[in-house]
């Protein structure tokens, strides 16, 4: 293990006795009494499916990152390195579960069937969202850190009132799942959300991706204890999971959902992962972390370790070659799609400010329309 200069990198697997792991960085399965049975349903086809998810998401993400570099997107928050934490968790959800994402949840969006291209709209500055939340049970991204953990908790309280927990019907019982970062855990809203969830036994899963950094601040600037211990302090059952282990992320989410669905209340999951790229494309990680640290985590790459397992368990090279071709084709379309996103009409500014007619908005819209038309008339007049 390298020297830890920043205090930011816990040597995963060495001192973290409580860290749930089902697949080592070397790609070997680990048996865990409680959690291994949770992945019994994942046969090789399913594992290949998870691998495909991660590869395609990473491919899309790298295209989006370079699109930003070429000035086609205003900003992009890369998810590089967090694919297992997102895909593993996302694939454990039932279709009727409702997700409140943060702003880096490309992999979760993918598992909810969101066409990833739609995520570009927000970062190109064409939309504040880009997809229909109800169509995918995947809410809009949340940019005010932690604010959405309360929305998820409230939504879960709605699920309770609808009687959709503890029915025993796997197609009916549902939960809310909220994704947020390690920095977010310092926010008051997250702490209030844990309180509300706990006292109400709300069917909500708090999924914290501890990617070690909140922009330039290490997790040690946010908390003196492992984040999962904070969950326990609220009376919320909590687990720490190796966030680069897609199988373990799947297993702990499945357990948390079972608890929520059956009426057992909330769970806090800390997925210990690493943000391999920049925080966003405007960030410069060389100012606050070392190459050596990054190298440590590169060796824990979530995609590589699943590839090793798949090869060991019989996936042939044709699977990998075909997937490579699929990813290539997927990536190629992204640029064209992005460039073709039209500039929205001016009138969009005034749409849906209120659900009802509003005199203030109507007056300003009318004024602006006339003002704009004035230019057209001037032009026509030459």
């Amino acid at each position, binding site marked *: 293990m390298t020297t830890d200069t920043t205090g930011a990198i816990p040597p995963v697997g060495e001192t973290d006795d409580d860290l749930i792991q089902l697949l080592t960085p070397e790609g070997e399965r680990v048996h865990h009494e409680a959690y291994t049975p949770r992945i019994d349903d994942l046969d090789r086809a399913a594992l290949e499916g998870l691998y495909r998810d991660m590869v395609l998401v990473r491919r899309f993400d790298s295209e989006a990152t370079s699109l930003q570099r070429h000035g086609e997107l205003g900003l992009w928050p890369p998810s590089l390195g967090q694919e297992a934490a997102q895909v593993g968790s996302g694939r454990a959800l039932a279709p009727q579960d*409702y997700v409140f994402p943060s702003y880096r949840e490309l992999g979760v969006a993918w598992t909810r069937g969101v066409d990833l291209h739609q995520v570009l709209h927000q970062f190109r500055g064409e939309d504040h969202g880009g997809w229909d939340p109800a169509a995918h049970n995947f809410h809009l991204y949340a940019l005010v850190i932690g604010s959405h*953990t309360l929305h998820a908790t409230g939504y879960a309280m709605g699920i309770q009132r609808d009687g959709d927990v503890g029915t025993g019907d796997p197609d009916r019982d549902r939960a809310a799942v909220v994704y947020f970062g390690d920095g977010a855990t310092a926010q*008051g809203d997250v702490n209030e959300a844990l309180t*509300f969830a706990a006292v109400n036994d709300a069917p909500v899963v708090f999924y914290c991706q501890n990617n070690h950094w909140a922009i330039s601040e290490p997790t040690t600037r946010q908390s003196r204890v492992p984040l999962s211990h904070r969950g326990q302090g609220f009376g919320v059952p909590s687990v720490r999971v190796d966030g680069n282990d897609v199988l373990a992320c799947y297993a702990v989410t499945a357990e948390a959902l079972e608890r929520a669905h059956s009426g057992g209340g909330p769970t806090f999951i800390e997925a210990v992962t690493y943000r391999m790229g920049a925080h966003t494309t405007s960030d410069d990680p060389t100012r606050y972390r070392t190459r050596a640290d990054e190298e440590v985590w590169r060796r824990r790459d979530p995609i590589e370790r699943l590839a090793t397992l798949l090869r060991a368990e019989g996936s042939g090279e044709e699977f990998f070659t075909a997937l490579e071709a699929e990813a290539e084709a997927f990536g190629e379309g992204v640029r064209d799609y992005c460039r073709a996103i039209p500039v929205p009409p001016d009138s969009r500014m005034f749409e849906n400010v*209120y*659900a*009802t007619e509003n005199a203030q908005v109507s007056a300003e819209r009318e004024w602006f329309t006339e003002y704009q038309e004035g230019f057209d008339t001037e032009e026509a007049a030459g």
Partner: protein
Amino acid sequence: MTATAPAPANQRLAMAKAINLGLRRAMERDAKVLLMGEDIGALGGVFRVTDGLQKDFGGDRVVDTPLAESGIVGTAIGLAVAGYRPVCEIQFDGFIFPAFNQITTQLAKMHYRSRGRVQVPVVIRVPYGGGIGAVEHHSESPEALFAHTAGLRVVSPANPSDAFTMIQQAIACPDPVLFLEPKSRYWDKADVEVSAAEQVLDADAGLNQARIVRPGTDVTLAAYGPSVATALRAASAAEAEGHSLEVVDLRSISPIDFDTLTESVRRTGRLVVVHEAPVFFGAGAEIAARVSQECFYHLEAPVARVGGFHAPYPVAKLEHDYLPDLDRVLHAVDGVLAH
């Protein structure tokens, strides 16, 4: 037809009781309506506005929440996304600020952000304003901070009858509504037409509309919430001195019904705006600017504003100096009449 319609069931109610009855009606009408806030259950709220509702509707619909304002509004947003119509109580005006972020960045904008796909019909009830001899943070008028935020509606009833109707309209409204309850008027009693609620609910515009509560010819007084009663008293006093004041109860602070207001000013040629909030950057500033622009050729005098000072809300022993009272309103009226 010879049969006459049954006489409207009038009840003489205090404003707090009228709101209570309005909440009850809304909850009976729609099972998705639920109340949430601190101490609103067994206690009935610190002002007893929710008195008896938990007993009748249960703890799942009248929810005693943890003591966390951001949590109250934030979870209400989630409940609204899930199809509920939460009505939050913030215990006092000065304690709304922990929820300011949820209200302004989340609640007000979710409909817009989702391009209309998500509705968040949350009502936030706030006992607001001064005049009850309270300690610090219990007497504030933060309406301008919220009216400045697009996506929110901000309203304040001035009498029991309006309070009864408007709370039901606010709950039925698909937009988020900040519902400011003038706490100094909670105990004022008046006749409330409790049978009239159903028809007004359908009138979407009802919640937006200003109302001329006293016609007059010399000066328009514009007020809302707790200041309407002050304006009405000033109008009575002025009458004795031979001046006819028209009092407009704005009822809605965002949006403002400028049509009703400017029509009145065009008739009277003079306007005095009265509110408890500080005058500086207050609702009166917006009103004065708009009316000056739209009624420039009808105005006989500059628009005058009467309100709180640019100082923190003072100690209770001084609040009578801070709040616009009859004399200060009449002083401003004299000023505009002197032109």
